[in-house]
């Protein structure tokens, strides 16, 4: 990231305390935030992108492939919003279609076969919304991911790096642990959607953002996430630190018997 953008994100702990939930929502959508591809480049060595769901198409909203983290082979999948206008259009602004979720599942099943851990980066305002997505079974695609990820016999870590919008985010987040960066969000509905449905008033978006309890501390308290990652202005050190944390997590999880791993994952979600 360019230094001026990095500075913009760097808030001192005192400043962070002053941030309202809606400020966090705004930051989670900031166009200068690093997107999934930046994370993949930042922590994965020798990334090889793998494409397509083998049924319909390749969905560019989800980028997936294989590579190494500190030498360990991994499968990496990310919801990519795109960085400039043309890129955003190409990636459908991070709104994944059914074929995107199916590609992700294909890659996760492949990871299971070859005993590779799965690392997912989540950044989406929600799954694709449109005629095509409905015709091709968006609901079914997400549902199958939830069921299959719950039983996947290899470690899964999902990291929220921006927006965590509803079922579209959860479709890549049935994991052994869920981490989020400190100005990311995770919510059942957008504050805008909540305001217009519940308050019948789209301008009450700030109230909605607060009521939804979508920030990292709230989610940590609810055990919806296990770890909050300090962003440190998204510096090179930030990516190096994250890489080390992910490697250590996977090393520990790989040592666990698969049955116990899957059982714990079931119990993690069973507790809600």
């Amino acid at each position, binding site marked *: 990231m360019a230094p001026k953008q990095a500075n913009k994100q760097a808030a001192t702990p005192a400043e962070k305390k002053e941030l309202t939930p809606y400020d966090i929502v705004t930051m989670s959508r900031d166009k200068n935030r690093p997107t999934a591809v930046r994370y993949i480049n930042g922590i994965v060595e020798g990334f090889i992108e793998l494409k397509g769901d083998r049924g319909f198409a390749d969905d560019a909203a989800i980028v997936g492939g294989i590579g190494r983290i500190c030498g360990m082979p991994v499968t990496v999948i990310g919801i990519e919003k795109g960085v400039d206008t043309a890129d955003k259009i190409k990636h459908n602004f991070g709104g994944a279609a059914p074929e995107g979720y199916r590609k992700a599942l294909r890659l996760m099943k492949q990871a299971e076969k070859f005993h590779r851990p799965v690392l997912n980066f989540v950044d989406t305002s929600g799954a694709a919304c449109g005629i095509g997505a409905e015709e091709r*079974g968006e609901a079914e695609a997400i549902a199958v991911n939830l069921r299959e990820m719950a039983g996947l016999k290899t470690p899964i870590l999902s990291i929220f790096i921006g927006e965590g919008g*509803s079922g579209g985010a959860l479709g890549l987040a049935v994991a052994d642990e869920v981490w989020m960066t400190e100005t990311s969000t995770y919510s059942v509905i957008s504050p805008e959607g909540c305001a217009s449905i519940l308050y019948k008033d789209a301008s009450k978006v700030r109230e909605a953002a607060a009521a939804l309890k979508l920030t990292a501390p709230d989610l940590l308290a*609810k055990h919806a996430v296990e770890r909050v990652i300090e962003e440190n202005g998204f510096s090179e050190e930030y990516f190096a630190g994250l890489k080390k944390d992910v490697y250590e997590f996977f090393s520990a999880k790989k040592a666990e018997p698969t049955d116990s791993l899957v059982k714990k994952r079931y119990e993690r979600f069973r507790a*809600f």
Partner: protein
Amino acid sequence: MGFEDTIRKIFFRKPKNALEGGADGNKPAVPEKVSVRCDKCRAILISSELDNNMKVCPKCGYHFKIGARERLIALCDDGEFTEMFADVVAESGDDFPGYAQKLDKARAESGEIEGVIAGVGKINGIYTAMFAIDYRFIMGSMGYAVGERITRIFEYATLHRYPVVGFSLSGGARMQEGITSLMQMAKTSAAVGRHNDAGLLYISVLTNPTTGGVSASFAFLGDIIVAEPDALIGFAGPRVIEQTTRQKLPAGFQRAEFLQQKGYVDLIVKRGDMKSKLGEIIALHTGGND
């Protein structure tokens, strides 16, 4: 007697006879409409005739919404349905603005304390675990209690090796419960997964409407997906899609027949045929005389 007592006596008196209130005489008197207009063919229908026809229009076959309990009782042999997990209710600890009032209203309108009814009964002599979501409870919104009851019925069915029949209906997640409501999608789907891994049958019946977090979790995970005629089924609701895409949606979009054509529904079954069709399918999966 004070003024308040008089008021209470007038407005909150117990019904004198069965005509005034429920058969048990304890429910408050609610005036029932004698006639209703069919949403589809606009014919004027006698309420009692509609009720006797499982809320299907005798003129055009339009399927009105039907209560969850009514549905399950109609499915069970001799109407013998045993409810389970009725003590699981929404957590009141969350202080989302207006949620408590919303729950009160839903409870008054539906006569149920939560949005899903789960339990067991026999279908053509075969023990089956079942659930149905009630439209009168915040249009089947899924919060903790709905997700928990459905998870428990799948776990119970896995333990006892019962098939599951589930009638889904929902406008989406219960946003008043925040992230907990979203997590119900993962929790229920994981429980369906264990039932599935045990080699057991789950028939999912999609009813009008099945959308949002319910369609994107247990509703679309059936071994066999059944839908009622003309039911609206999708991930995003049609209004949201129109607003987002600024496109006019084609006629029949997201209806059961459309989903069947696109490959997402196995069969469309009229409500009057539901018990016999589900019974046939279940019997095929329970060994029989082979």
